Protein backbone atom coordinates (compact mmCIF):
# COMPACT_ATOMS: atom_id res chain seq x y z
CA UNK A 1 0.00 0.00 0.00
CA UNK A 2 2.84 2.38 0.89
CA UNK A 3 4.60 1.67 -2.40
CA UNK A 4 1.39 2.36 -4.37
CA UNK A 5 1.01 5.77 -2.76
CA UNK A 6 4.73 6.48 -3.29
CA UNK A 7 4.27 5.64 -6.99
CA UNK A 8 1.53 8.24 -7.17
CA UNK A 9 3.73 10.87 -5.54
CA UNK A 10 6.52 9.99 -7.98
CA UNK A 11 4.01 10.60 -10.77
CA UNK A 12 3.00 13.94 -9.24
CA UNK A 13 6.69 14.95 -9.23
CA UNK A 14 7.18 13.88 -12.85
CA UNK A 15 3.94 15.55 -13.91
CA UNK A 16 4.84 18.81 -12.13
CA UNK A 17 8.33 19.00 -13.64
CA UNK A 18 7.07 18.20 -17.14
CA UNK A 19 3.75 20.08 -16.82
CA UNK A 20 4.35 22.07 -20.00
CA UNK A 21 4.60 18.97 -22.19
CA UNK A 22 1.34 18.87 -24.08
CA UNK A 23 1.47 15.06 -24.31
CA UNK A 24 0.87 14.86 -20.54
CA UNK A 25 -2.57 16.41 -21.01
CA UNK A 26 -3.57 13.15 -22.70
CA UNK A 27 -3.23 11.05 -19.52
CA UNK A 28 -7.03 10.82 -19.18
CA UNK A 29 -7.13 8.51 -22.22
CA UNK A 30 -4.32 6.25 -21.05
CA UNK A 31 -5.80 6.13 -17.53
CA UNK A 32 -9.08 4.82 -18.99
CA UNK A 33 -7.21 2.19 -20.99
CA UNK A 34 -5.33 1.09 -17.87
CA UNK A 35 -8.59 0.77 -15.92
CA UNK A 36 -10.07 -1.38 -18.72
CA UNK A 37 -7.04 -3.65 -18.50
CA UNK A 38 -7.26 -3.84 -14.69
CA UNK A 39 -10.93 -4.87 -14.79
CA UNK A 40 -10.18 -7.38 -17.55
CA UNK A 41 -7.55 -9.05 -15.35
CA UNK A 42 -10.00 -9.01 -12.42
CA UNK A 43 -12.52 -10.78 -14.68
CA UNK A 44 -9.94 -13.40 -15.64
CA UNK A 45 -9.07 -14.07 -12.00
CA UNK A 46 -12.74 -14.50 -11.05
CA UNK A 47 -13.60 -16.64 -14.09
CA UNK A 48 -10.73 -19.01 -13.39
CA UNK A 49 -11.59 -19.32 -9.66
CA UNK A 50 -13.75 -22.45 -9.48
CA UNK A 51 -14.79 -21.82 -5.85
CA UNK A 52 -16.50 -18.58 -6.92
CA UNK A 53 -17.91 -19.84 -10.22
CA UNK A 54 -19.46 -22.99 -8.71
CA UNK A 55 -21.05 -21.11 -5.79
CA UNK A 56 -22.02 -17.91 -7.54
CA UNK A 57 -25.72 -18.36 -6.76
CA UNK A 58 -25.14 -19.09 -3.09
CA UNK A 59 -22.54 -16.39 -2.42
CA UNK A 60 -23.76 -13.94 -5.04
CA UNK A 61 -27.01 -12.87 -3.42
CA UNK A 62 -25.38 -12.53 0.02
CA UNK A 63 -22.74 -10.32 -1.59
CA UNK A 64 -25.45 -8.27 -3.32
CA UNK A 65 -27.18 -7.63 0.03
CA UNK A 66 -23.93 -6.67 1.74
CA UNK A 67 -22.71 -4.51 -1.15
CA UNK A 68 -26.05 -2.68 -1.46
CA UNK A 69 -26.15 -2.05 2.28
CA UNK A 70 -22.62 -0.68 2.36
CA UNK A 71 -23.27 1.53 -0.67
CA UNK A 72 -26.58 2.80 0.74
CA UNK A 73 -24.98 3.54 4.12
CA UNK A 74 -22.15 5.52 2.58
CA UNK A 75 -24.55 7.39 0.26
CA UNK A 76 -26.65 8.54 3.20
CA UNK A 77 -23.56 9.42 5.23
CA UNK A 78 -22.06 11.42 2.34
CA UNK A 79 -25.33 13.29 1.86
CA UNK A 80 -25.50 14.13 5.58
CA UNK A 81 -21.86 15.28 5.69
CA UNK A 82 -22.47 17.48 2.64
CA UNK A 83 -25.62 19.06 4.11
CA UNK A 84 -24.36 19.48 7.67
CA UNK A 85 -20.79 20.61 7.11
CA UNK A 86 -20.23 21.73 3.53
CA UNK A 87 -23.39 23.56 2.48
CA UNK A 88 -23.10 26.81 4.46
CA UNK A 89 -21.28 29.48 2.50
CA UNK A 90 -22.50 28.04 -0.76
CA UNK A 91 -20.18 26.34 -3.20
CA UNK A 92 -16.54 26.10 -2.31
Amino acid at each position, binding site marked *: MFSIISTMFLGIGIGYVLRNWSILQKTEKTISLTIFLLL*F*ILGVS*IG*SNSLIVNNLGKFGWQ*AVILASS*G*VLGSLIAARLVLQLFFKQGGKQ
Partner: protein
Amino acid sequence: MKGSLIVILFFCIGCVMGLFNKFEFDTHTVSMYILYALMLQVGISIGSNKSLKAIVSHLHPKMLLIPLGTIIGTLLFSALASLFLRQWSVFDCMAVGSGFAYYSLSSILITQFKEPSIGLQLATELGTIALLTNIFREMMALLGTPVIKKYFGKLAPISVAGVNSMDVLLPSISRYSGKEMIPIAILHGILIDISVPVFVSFFCNL
Protein backbone atom coordinates in the same frame (compact mmCIF):
# COMPACT_ATOMS: atom_id res chain seq x y z
CA MET B 1 -21.60 6.28 -18.87
CA LYS B 2 -20.10 4.91 -22.07
CA GLY B 3 -16.81 4.46 -20.22
CA SER B 4 -18.54 2.43 -17.49
CA LEU B 5 -20.16 0.13 -20.05
CA ILE B 6 -16.80 -0.49 -21.68
CA VAL B 7 -15.36 -1.29 -18.23
CA ILE B 8 -18.12 -3.86 -17.63
CA LEU B 9 -17.58 -5.28 -21.10
CA PHE B 10 -13.85 -5.79 -20.45
CA PHE B 11 -14.68 -7.33 -17.07
CA CYS B 12 -17.15 -9.78 -18.67
CA ILE B 13 -14.75 -10.73 -21.48
CA GLY B 14 -12.15 -11.38 -18.76
CA CYS B 15 -14.60 -13.59 -16.81
CA VAL B 16 -15.41 -15.65 -19.91
CA MET B 17 -11.76 -16.02 -20.83
CA GLY B 18 -10.96 -17.06 -17.27
CA LEU B 19 -13.72 -19.67 -17.39
CA PHE B 20 -12.47 -21.37 -20.52
CA ASN B 21 -8.74 -20.97 -20.22
CA LYS B 22 -6.41 -21.98 -17.48
CA PHE B 23 -3.90 -19.15 -17.46
CA GLU B 24 -0.39 -19.90 -16.36
CA PHE B 25 0.35 -16.43 -15.01
CA ASP B 26 -0.44 -15.17 -11.54
CA THR B 27 -3.28 -12.65 -12.05
CA HIS B 28 -2.67 -11.03 -8.67
CA THR B 29 0.92 -10.07 -9.55
CA VAL B 30 -0.10 -8.82 -13.00
CA SER B 31 -2.88 -6.65 -11.57
CA MET B 32 -0.44 -5.22 -9.00
CA TYR B 33 1.86 -4.06 -11.81
CA ILE B 34 -1.07 -2.56 -13.72
CA LEU B 35 -2.17 -0.79 -10.54
CA TYR B 36 1.33 0.72 -10.23
CA ALA B 37 1.10 1.90 -13.84
CA LEU B 38 -2.30 3.41 -13.09
CA MET B 39 -1.09 5.23 -9.99
CA LEU B 40 1.91 6.65 -11.86
CA GLN B 41 -0.43 8.04 -14.52
CA VAL B 42 -2.89 9.37 -11.93
CA GLY B 43 0.09 11.10 -10.28
CA ILE B 44 1.27 12.57 -13.58
CA SER B 45 -2.19 13.89 -14.37
CA ILE B 46 -2.39 15.56 -10.95
CA GLY B 47 1.15 16.95 -11.11
CA SER B 48 0.73 18.37 -14.59
CA ASN B 49 -2.60 19.98 -13.68
CA LYS B 50 -2.20 23.74 -14.13
CA SER B 51 -4.39 24.58 -11.14
CA LEU B 52 -2.60 22.22 -8.71
CA LYS B 53 -1.75 24.94 -6.17
CA ALA B 54 -5.32 26.22 -6.02
CA ILE B 55 -6.53 22.65 -5.50
CA VAL B 56 -4.11 21.89 -2.63
CA SER B 57 -4.99 25.15 -0.86
CA HIS B 58 -8.58 23.88 -0.64
CA LEU B 59 -7.63 21.11 1.81
CA HIS B 60 -9.26 21.65 5.17
CA PRO B 61 -9.44 19.58 8.41
CA LYS B 62 -13.22 19.21 8.10
CA MET B 63 -12.62 17.09 5.00
CA LEU B 64 -11.70 14.29 7.41
CA LEU B 65 -15.45 14.07 8.05
CA ILE B 66 -15.90 12.46 4.61
CA PRO B 67 -13.88 9.28 5.29
CA LEU B 68 -15.43 9.22 8.77
CA GLY B 69 -18.90 9.33 7.19
CA THR B 70 -17.95 6.55 4.75
CA ILE B 71 -16.81 4.34 7.63
CA ILE B 72 -19.80 4.97 9.91
CA GLY B 73 -22.39 4.69 7.12
CA THR B 74 -20.91 1.51 5.66
CA LEU B 75 -20.44 -0.25 9.00
CA LEU B 76 -23.89 0.70 10.31
CA PHE B 77 -25.68 -0.58 7.21
CA SER B 78 -23.48 -3.70 6.99
CA ALA B 79 -24.55 -4.47 10.55
CA LEU B 80 -28.21 -4.04 9.49
CA ALA B 81 -27.62 -6.39 6.56
CA SER B 82 -26.88 -9.18 9.05
CA LEU B 83 -30.64 -9.25 9.80
CA PHE B 84 -31.11 -10.77 6.33
CA LEU B 85 -28.09 -13.08 6.52
CA ARG B 86 -28.78 -15.53 9.32
CA GLN B 87 -25.68 -17.61 8.58
CA TRP B 88 -23.32 -14.81 9.59
CA SER B 89 -23.01 -12.76 12.76
CA VAL B 90 -23.23 -8.96 12.92
CA PHE B 91 -19.46 -8.76 13.23
CA ASP B 92 -18.89 -11.05 10.23
CA CYS B 93 -21.03 -8.71 8.13
CA MET B 94 -19.20 -5.66 9.48
CA ALA B 95 -15.85 -7.31 8.65
CA VAL B 96 -17.03 -7.81 5.05
CA GLY B 97 -18.25 -4.18 4.90
CA SER B 98 -14.87 -3.01 6.25
CA GLY B 99 -13.36 -3.95 2.90
CA PHE B 100 -14.58 -0.59 1.53
CA ALA B 101 -14.28 -1.98 -2.03
CA TYR B 102 -10.71 -3.20 -1.42
CA TYR B 103 -11.66 -6.70 -2.56
CA SER B 104 -8.23 -8.30 -2.88
CA LEU B 105 -6.93 -7.38 0.56
CA SER B 106 -10.19 -7.74 2.50
CA SER B 107 -10.97 -11.23 1.17
CA ILE B 108 -7.49 -12.53 1.99
CA LEU B 109 -7.51 -10.96 5.46
CA ILE B 110 -10.97 -12.31 6.31
CA THR B 111 -10.07 -15.84 5.23
CA GLN B 112 -6.93 -15.74 7.35
CA PHE B 113 -8.41 -14.09 10.44
CA LYS B 114 -11.57 -16.24 10.57
CA GLU B 115 -9.91 -19.62 10.00
CA PRO B 116 -8.90 -20.23 13.66
CA SER B 117 -12.44 -19.56 14.96
CA ILE B 118 -14.79 -20.98 12.31
CA GLY B 119 -12.58 -23.35 10.31
CA LEU B 120 -11.11 -23.22 6.81
CA GLN B 121 -14.33 -24.03 4.92
CA LEU B 122 -16.49 -21.28 6.45
CA ALA B 123 -13.58 -18.81 6.51
CA THR B 124 -13.05 -19.34 2.77
CA GLU B 125 -16.78 -18.86 2.16
CA LEU B 126 -16.81 -15.58 4.08
CA GLY B 127 -13.64 -14.52 2.25
CA THR B 128 -15.32 -15.25 -1.09
CA ILE B 129 -18.41 -13.27 -0.05
CA ALA B 130 -16.10 -10.41 0.93
CA LEU B 131 -14.41 -10.58 -2.47
CA LEU B 132 -17.73 -10.47 -4.33
CA THR B 133 -19.26 -7.82 -2.04
CA ASN B 134 -16.35 -5.47 -2.53
CA ILE B 135 -16.19 -6.11 -6.29
CA PHE B 136 -19.93 -5.32 -6.49
CA ARG B 137 -19.30 -2.13 -4.55
CA GLU B 138 -16.61 -1.08 -7.00
CA MET B 139 -18.92 -1.92 -9.92
CA MET B 140 -21.78 0.11 -8.40
CA ALA B 141 -19.43 3.05 -7.94
CA LEU B 142 -18.06 2.69 -11.49
CA LEU B 143 -21.46 2.44 -13.12
CA GLY B 144 -23.39 4.75 -10.84
CA THR B 145 -21.15 7.81 -10.39
CA PRO B 146 -23.31 10.19 -12.52
CA VAL B 147 -26.56 9.09 -10.82
CA ILE B 148 -24.96 9.06 -7.35
CA LYS B 149 -23.67 12.61 -7.86
CA LYS B 150 -27.09 13.78 -9.04
CA TYR B 151 -29.13 12.45 -6.12
CA PHE B 152 -26.69 12.40 -3.19
CA GLY B 153 -24.36 15.30 -3.92
CA LYS B 154 -20.74 15.69 -4.94
CA LEU B 155 -19.27 13.89 -1.92
CA ALA B 156 -21.24 10.68 -2.46
CA PRO B 157 -19.19 9.35 -5.42
CA ILE B 158 -16.07 9.61 -3.19
CA SER B 159 -17.76 7.87 -0.29
CA VAL B 160 -19.21 5.00 -2.34
CA ALA B 161 -15.86 4.45 -4.08
CA GLY B 162 -14.29 3.67 -0.69
CA VAL B 163 -10.61 2.92 -1.12
CA ASN B 164 -10.90 3.31 -4.92
CA SER B 165 -11.58 7.04 -4.66
CA MET B 166 -7.82 7.54 -5.11
CA ASP B 167 -7.29 5.27 -8.11
CA VAL B 168 -9.88 3.51 -10.28
CA LEU B 169 -12.69 5.95 -9.49
CA LEU B 170 -10.60 9.13 -9.46
CA PRO B 171 -11.20 9.95 -13.15
CA SER B 172 -15.01 9.69 -12.80
CA ILE B 173 -15.00 11.62 -9.52
CA SER B 174 -13.02 14.42 -11.14
CA ARG B 175 -15.39 14.41 -14.12
CA TYR B 176 -18.71 14.39 -12.28
CA SER B 177 -17.95 15.99 -8.89
CA GLY B 178 -15.36 18.45 -10.19
CA LYS B 179 -11.57 18.74 -10.37
CA GLU B 180 -11.47 20.49 -6.99
CA MET B 181 -12.57 17.16 -5.44
CA ILE B 182 -9.34 15.39 -6.49
CA PRO B 183 -7.30 16.11 -3.32
CA ILE B 184 -10.28 15.17 -1.11
CA ALA B 185 -10.74 11.93 -3.06
CA ILE B 186 -7.05 11.04 -2.66
CA LEU B 187 -7.03 11.88 1.05
CA HIS B 188 -10.19 9.79 1.45
CA GLY B 189 -8.65 6.85 -0.43
CA ILE B 190 -5.46 6.89 1.64
CA LEU B 191 -7.27 7.06 4.99
CA ILE B 192 -9.77 4.34 4.04
CA ASP B 193 -6.90 2.22 2.74
CA ILE B 194 -5.18 2.41 6.14
CA SER B 195 -8.45 1.63 7.92
CA VAL B 196 -9.19 -1.61 6.00
CA PRO B 197 -6.76 -3.96 7.79
CA VAL B 198 -7.54 -2.31 11.14
CA PHE B 199 -11.32 -2.76 10.93
CA VAL B 200 -11.22 -6.18 9.25
CA SER B 201 -8.99 -7.64 11.95
CA PHE B 202 -11.00 -5.92 14.69
CA PHE B 203 -14.37 -7.34 13.55
CA CYS B 204 -12.93 -10.78 12.79
CA ASN B 205 -11.70 -11.09 16.35
CA LEU B 206 -14.98 -10.09 18.04
